[in-house]
């Protein structure tokens, strides 16, 4: 296959950035999208042009490092991570547009690489259960109903890639936040901090300049891990409960 790429090039955080067109020839349909970018980068290097920077690591869809907007869709046409997207999803002669996640809370560092440190700070604000090492009771001391455990698990599969933010017209990080609130809130171990957690995490989310959630649902539609949209309903319920609770500050 022969592909034309329109790629966002931006030298650094202060550069204005622009789209640049490249041809990539002899693309195999079995290549992953990132391997196709590797081929482009090898070619650019030999031609003396700096390769395109993009984040990636495990290349098996679990670390959450990769993620670009392909033809306007976060992670491209299949509901998967960019590293698990293959060129057989495209056709010979296609022109493909590749851009970084665009959100105020995810500033561009270079080319397709963005800073997602805001996600870590949301977790720091309360996305945990306080259980210092060595203090744990026996694992079977507290059974967890299977339905609750399964729902906690579904929410816990979030890989923190940021596609939800990139897809949201408001650039909201609510699905990410809600996934963590739901994961920990479904478990008995997570109850003591449940109210404080949701309040602190949502506060941090807003401080990071993520947009507000208006229930559009683009986030869940592109999520490579299928985090359900109703986690946001759970977050809202928890938040309302926490704000009206006698324990709230």
């Amino acid at each position, binding site marked *: 296959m022969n592909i034309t790429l329109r790629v966002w090039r931006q030298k*650094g955080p202060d550069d204005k950035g622009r789209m640049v067109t490249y041809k990539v020839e002899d693309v195999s349909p079995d290549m992953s999208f990132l391997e196709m970018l*590797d081929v482009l980068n090898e070619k650019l*290097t030999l031609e003396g042009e700096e390769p395109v920077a993009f984040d990636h690591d495990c290349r098996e869809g679990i670390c959450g*490092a990769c993620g670009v907007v392909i033809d306007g869709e976060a992670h491209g046409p299949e509901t998967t991570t960019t590293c698990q997207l293959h060129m057989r999803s495209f056709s010979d002669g296609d022109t493909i547009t590749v851009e970084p996640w665009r959100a105020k809370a995810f500033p561009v560092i270079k080319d397709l690489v963005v800073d997602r440190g805001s996600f870590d700070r949301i*977790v720091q604000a309360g996305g945990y*259960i306080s259980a210092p090492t060595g203090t*744990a009771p026996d694992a079977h001391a507290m059974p*967890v109903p299977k339905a609750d455990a399964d729902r906690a*698990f579904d929410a816990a599969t979030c890989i923190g890639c940021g596609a939800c933010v990139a897809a949201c017209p408001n650039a909201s990080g609510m699905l990410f936040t809600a996934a963590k609130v739901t994961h920990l809130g479904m478990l008995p171990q997570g109850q003591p901090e449940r109210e404080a957690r949701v309040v602190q995490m949502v506060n941090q989310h807003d401080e990071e300049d993520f947009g507000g959630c208006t229930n559009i649902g683009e986030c869940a539609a592109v999520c490579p891990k299928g985090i359900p949209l109703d986690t946001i309903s759970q977050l809202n319920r928890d938040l309302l409960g926490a704000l009206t609770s006698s324990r709230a500050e």
Partner: protein
Amino acid sequence: MRDLYTEGDEIRDEKAPAGPIAERWDKRRFSAKLVNPANRRKLSVIIVGTGLAGASAAATLGEAGYQVKSFCYQDSPRRAHSIAAQGGINAAKNYRNDGDSIYRLFYDTVKGGDFRSRESNVYRLSQVSVEIIDQCVAQGVPFAREYGGLLDNRSFGGVQVSRTFYARGQTGQQLLIGAYQALERQVQAGTVEMNTRHEMLELIVVDGRARGIIARDMVTGEIETHFADAVVLSTGGYGNVFYLSTNAMGCNVTATWRAHRKGAYFANPCYTQIHPTCIPVSGDYQSKLTLMSESLRNDGRIWVPSRAGDSRDPREIPEDERDYYLERIYPSFGNLVPRDIASRAAKNVCDEGRGVGPGGLGVYLDFADAIKRMGRPAVEAKYGNLFDMYQRITGENPYEVPMRIYPAVHYTMGGLWVDYDLQSSIPGLFVTGEANFSDHGANRLGASALMQGLADGYFVLPNTINDYLAGGPFEKLDENTPEAKEAAEAVRARIDRLLSVNGDRTVDSFHKELGHIMWDYCGMERNEEGLRKAVERIRELREEFWQNVRVLGTNEELNQSLEKAGRVADFFELAELMCVDALHRRESCGGHFRSESQTEDGEALRHDDEFAYVAAWEFGGTGEPPVLHKEPLEYEYVEMKQRSYK
């Protein structure tokens, strides 16, 4: 062979107490000096790497009140490669009442390691395994549960008990998120300073003690000097020396290799594990390999055409023209032989020209019989997610066409030498997780990597590092300390050199070629002639690398080619040591198979009289041969036996 290395004094682990094995860990915890809580605030620890072994240690030492500085090359500590582990984590809980015990887990691990690990360390690992599960559940790790609400277990890796805890196919991600959240809690509490997108490029050793690191800020290119009273390396394995492996793209040996060059011994570098059920290479552009759970071998049948060069559609090859070679060679274990044996057999049939798929590097894993026997819905229920993954990557439907699989490098048992306290041969330098060598011997059992990472980070290191830190705080240092200045200058000089070559070849082209050499000569089967050839070719290629590599851009920006170039340069040096280690070990054991040392049936043959030791290599100086230090291994509790799977 003595042209390639010299031999130094024997070494011993001085820290493991004597006496009954079950009491040693208690004894050591009691004899280790403590640091009172008020003094911990004055002591600092650098931890490099935020996988299971690093994040758990950073969180725990932060909770204890030490000042911790944590580093990772990823944009978030949550992305370290522990995240990709699928299967599960072992623990001797005996929740199934099926005869499991700490002793049995210990026994299985020593035997599985083919009698090349330390009994004291492995026993402690088994003891601590029980606490890990408690800790993770308390943190909210969503392990699989049964309808009664209790934790589910499964049997894994051919053992006879069900001791593996799991979280669907993503146990690694769930355990790592647990450790990551504990780490972020300490960041918020101010006990841990987190440095993401930072890569350690040099170790600072002052007066014989590890006192800090030089790290590069991967966004700005700034070369930073960080000091501490102790340094912990939790930087994972070196499987990417083979270029293609199941490791993440960024996994590298630089942190441990730089420490090695500063005096830390590197133990058993030739022990690598090659996993039999990976999706094969589809073309030269391939950047990494993906593992599929080996549970597929429970119902799939492995075969290749009987005739070399038979390129017919597999469905058109009649039964009598197929070779179900595992069932033929190992009639009693069949398709379920251990990982190393299945891998080597696949390589052998491909070497005979009977491999399938692109480049002839693959064998069929066929579910046609299973579908006939169990029906498609049953196969779907059991393996559906794996079949989907296979189809997503290859574009082929495994319900209709047999899958193709091929072995791939996925874990390295070797690593920096450590004593029972996990301290390396440099005082003040500790090493945890896959980065050290201590617990798996020559072969790691399934579901034991996660166990070791968390054992080291949550429970072992936090109870041993205090013995060292009790001697601190050490002398205050600043950037003008000659050793720190020298280390920073060395890093800058190396970067300048990489950027100034401006040759004709990309970093990846060198890495690929190195990977081919290692795979061909230091992979599943090794012999003297091949290894000698490999050493020569590695040296030539390394020479060419420094003359002809092309790295564009500058240091003062995000520069992924520059990052890779530094890592590949270190892989070149490690690769040579791996070959020398493999050459000197003229026996087969675990993941190390020397074709000169096999039984009449072609199985691995150990030589316990000559090689029952840890090979700890000391850096001999640039261009000088390494120095071998042997640490004899003694087995008081488990009798040494030869394995058989016929």
